[in-house]
């Protein structure tokens, strides 16, 4: 039973790590702000769910599992809100969702 849990944890953690890495590479290589947001959100959702589920399997039935579930729930609530707030602020500032061109906006820094 323990080895089954270990193997499942291993699979979940490695897959989660893979998603996190993919999201990171995407955030670096994507051409526009909004596409980068897509990439970053991959890490926040799939990456976080897989990694934290893998850790939950390792923790068994204990207080730590409840804490990890609370962290996951919190991340799932706040990451979309942050992305929405960021996207709406960028839209209001005038950044166009225009892939392939250099960002033209009045807030370039």
């Amino acid at each position, binding site marked *: 039973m323990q080895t089954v849990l*270990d193997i499942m*944890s*291993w699979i979940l*953690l*490695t897959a*989660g*790590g*893979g998603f*996190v*890495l993919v*999201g*990171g*590479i995407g*955030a*670096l290589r994507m051409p526009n*702000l909004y596409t*980068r*947001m897509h990439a*970053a959100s991959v*890490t*926040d959702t799939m*990456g*976080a769910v897989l*990694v*934290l589920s*893998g*850790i939950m399997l*390792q*923790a068994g039935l*204990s*207080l*730590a599992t409840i*804490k*990890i579930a*609370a*962290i996951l729930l*919190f*991340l799932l609530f*706040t*990451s979309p*809100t*942050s992305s929405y*707030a*960021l996207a709406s*602020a*960028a839209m*209001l*500032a005038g*950044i166009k969702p225009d892939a392939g061109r*250099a*960002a033209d*906006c009045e*807030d*370039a*820094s």
Partner: protein
Amino acid sequence: MYYVVTIATLITMALALVRALLGPTVYDRVLSVNMFGTKTVLLIAVIAFLAGRPDFLDLALAYALINFIGVLAVLEFFKSRAARRAAERAGDDA
């Protein structure tokens, strides 16, 4: 078992840092700081289990909270600055 995911998270943190240094607009930097924060949450959770100290999970929860509040504060700053600039422009035109 945890080393793979720790290394992946650390590399992603480095990539987010590069985006924060490069990003042409400020919103790219805000995005990378947000991503950095959530990666730190994952890193803390994994390191907590790596070191065998599950009571470090309070830190991860606190980080998630702080990251959220920080990003909202930044965006509020932008909105108030844009509103103030619009008000100044309206005041100049008047």
